[in-house]
């Protein structure tokens, strides 16, 4: 009997972000919101690969119609084998927020890029604010 060392490289990670949906506070899926409303960003994360990933950086960023970051949140999660989870981030549209199309980007990184982390997946959606 012998043990075999397996070197894990980034290419071995298969992390999938499911479709990103926006909903109101009651969980009703919609893409049109008013200023002052809360937008829930819902998506799933799946570890479809053969290796666990610890402290994955899962980030949600919302860019306002001018492409300015309006919201950035993150969580550091362990993603074991066969991990599948739905995550929800909440964002309250400011009363003075701009009207127009807001872009939502959900991203998963191995770590912060400033620390050498690399992106594993990105999903994008949008909602309209009036």
């Amino acid at each position, binding site marked *: 009997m012998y043990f075999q060392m397996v070197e894990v490289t980034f290419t071995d990670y298969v992390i999938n972000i499911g479709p990103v949906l926006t909903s109101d506070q009651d969980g009703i899926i919609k893409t049109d919101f008013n200023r002052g409303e809360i937008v829930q960003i819902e998506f799933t994360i799946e570890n479809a690969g053969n290796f666990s990933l610890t402290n994955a950086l899962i980030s949600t960023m919302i*860019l306002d119609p*001018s492409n300015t970051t309006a919201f950035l949140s993150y*969580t550091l999660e362990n993603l074991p084998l066969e991990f599948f989870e*739905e995550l929800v981030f909440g964002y309250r549209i400011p009363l003075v927020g701009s009207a127009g199309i807001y872009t939502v980007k959900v991203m998963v990184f191995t770590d912060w890029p*400033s620390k050498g982390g690399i*992106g594993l997946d990105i999903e994008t959606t949008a909602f309209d604010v009036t």
Partner: protein
Amino acid sequence: MRHRFKVLPILYLIIIASSMQISGTMPSLSSQVTSSEMLLTIQMERAYYLPGELVKIFGNLTHSNGTAIQDGTISIEVKDSNNYTFFLDITYTSSDGSFKTSFRLSSIAYVGQYIVYATAHKTGYENATESAIFYVTTDDLFVVRLDPIQVILNADALIMNKKTTVRVIVANGFSERKWVDIQIIYDFASETYDENGPTGIGIPLDPGLNRIYVPGGPILNATHLVEPQWIPPEGQYFVFRWTNTGTDNNITVIIDPDNNIAETDETNNEKTGSREVRNTNSLTIRYYKLRPLLPVYGTPSWNNFSETVNEGNSFINATYPVAGNEFSGVSVGTLWSSPIPGLGMIDDFLSLHIYAAIGQFDRAVGIVSDDYFPFHLLHVPDASNKTGFSHTSITQAALVRAGYWTTITHEIGHTYGLNRDAEDYDINPLGSFASGYWVTRKKEIPKAISFMGESPFRSFEYNSTYSMWVANSHYESLFDAFASSTAHSTSNLVEPSASALFVRGIAFENGTMEFRDMYLLDGGAVKYPEPGEWSLVFRNSSGQVLSETPFNVSFAMFGGKTLSNVTGFAFSVPYPTSSTTIQVWRNSTLILEKQVTSYAPSIEVLSPNGGEFLMAGLNCTVTWNASDLDGDPLAYTIAYSYDSGESWIPVATDVEGNSYVWNTSLLEDGSNYLVRVIATDGVNTGEDVSDNVFTVSKIHDLAVTDVTLSKVVVGQNYSMSIKATVQNNGECSENFNVTAYANTTTITTLTNVTLANGNSTILTLPWNTTSFGKGNYTISAQVIPVPYERNIEDNNFTDGTVLVTIAGDANGDGVVDIFDLNIAGKAYGSFAGEPRYSPEADITNDDHVDMRDIVVIARNYGKIEP
């Protein structure tokens, strides 16, 4: 399958707001870090943004061989000046390896330095990382960084007393040009300089980042030249200097020190830096024009020689880590060179080396004609392309082709350790890249190749893209070389000695060697050779080894590429006083041996021996008497001093006989000249110096050749003029004073008159007779003798007399009467130069006879001179 629902705590929320001040010190707009496989670049279109502006980030991902990498994953993170992450993105490279993303800054974005981090990933490659910087500012000026520059940016240290510029980078966050004063505190806080710009109202700073070179500009921003250089208040050549060594922690720049500009942040207008200041050794170079004893190759013209030396010196001063007051590079004359192919070139190296050794200067450089190297290096196919050589075992000499200004720095660089074994241009196609700043020319050198690469002809520009400069690594190596004393090998010296033997020899391909005449000099500087498989051995009469010095002999020139079939060696070692035999051994084989005879030559300089006046440019025959009790044949080296023996400049070596014709054409005027003749019997050396100083001068001869008077009768208290014609009969342009005399009393002196040689000028000397009594005066003019002017008999010229009399006495008969009115009447209305004009009638001396003159006559009418 697990299923989880989570609303993230507010703790993780990052909100972008507020403003701040920065103290960033990393201005690079882009940089590149390579992995072993991928090269990632990243940059913004600008280095400076206002709040609310769109920031576009773009870059490329390539294989290390330059091939584009498609579908690479690029992860981006942007941190603001508070180190808060506010933007993340994942993007992918297109078919050409490029990627891009963008975001808009918040309208209330923090002011200061922002950092963009990027990582690149592609299966099969190592990840690559990269970062870049930009700045956010608004209605604010702030100092991004300051850099004292002497040659290159970010040198390890400043050099004491070397000319220095301070580069300041200032961000202007206003939407329009601002005129800003800048204050620099330097030299260990002992000096303060206020830069008020080209017109005294401040430095013009355009929106964005501005690079300002203080003092006197130029100013540049990212896209254009804001303002060219100007003359600072302290003068055109004013630069900063650090006058002490140590660590200066208080180098400070303050912008808008009087707070004339209202800013959103007044706290970021000052920045203080730190630099170590060191001293370095001096560099003294003497240049010789090589001229063959037979016309087998050409000789550079004096103009070409002088231009090469002057421009070469300028470039050395600009690029070497040596303070200007520690550098001396002077043309001293002609070296008559050997006409024997190959061997003659080595002998020229040896002559230059002994010149440097005897003259105690660091390097002797021979300037040669275009056909010198092809003549000597028949076996080298591209010899006609060579522009210079330095020798691995004759290290105080170099040969440079006339017109190749940067080759001087190149070859001297070799002798100080740069690219000893392989030429820079053989390692890299162009040579090492370089950049920096030419302080005295106020010239930014953004893109250059090292002077250890190839040299351009009569230029400091390699081509339209690259200048010539010193590469950072070469500068640091030279800094180390000039900061430390010369390393040497140990020599098992048995008898300490105050004398140094200057050893010279030739080595042939078949392994044989010959000594050239050596010189034993009291107090001579010891410069040990590089150790090698040869040994110089001194033995006494008992055969005892007194000292042994290993040395190397190489048939390769520095750079390692060009080989010669004959080579030489030259160095100096302490001389054991009881030596009777000098040997060269190669491993266990005796190669060469020379017996040392008992007596040193005796010598006496006969001429010039003190008190002489030599005309520069004319040949001077130096003569001496010499003898040797051993009957050894003698050879001589002749040197001169212009400073009473403080320094010596050899002008000829290996001279036979008892005289030498010395060409004095390059000598400066001076009265402290001495001649020194050194005789050697091959080892023992005797020498003598002129008993007293003598003078050398070009011909200086000014003469007053004519004096004319505007009138011969002048009314007391009125003026006239004296015109003196001065001729410069000498060889030099002169600056002189001219005095006019009435009898022996000085009338007036004109100062600082400049006149080129061969020219003449007419000078007008006004005479106001107010303080002169009535009577006759003899008028003369004298040009005051200039230094070294010998013929002063023609410096005076006397021209007749002038009568000072009653105002209105136009005819000078002692009475103002009708006859004077008659003279004035006949000339009335005339102007100087017209036929009717009478200078005596023009009493008021305004070149016009008019009513004013009549009034003077009328006012004094009837007066009689007692």
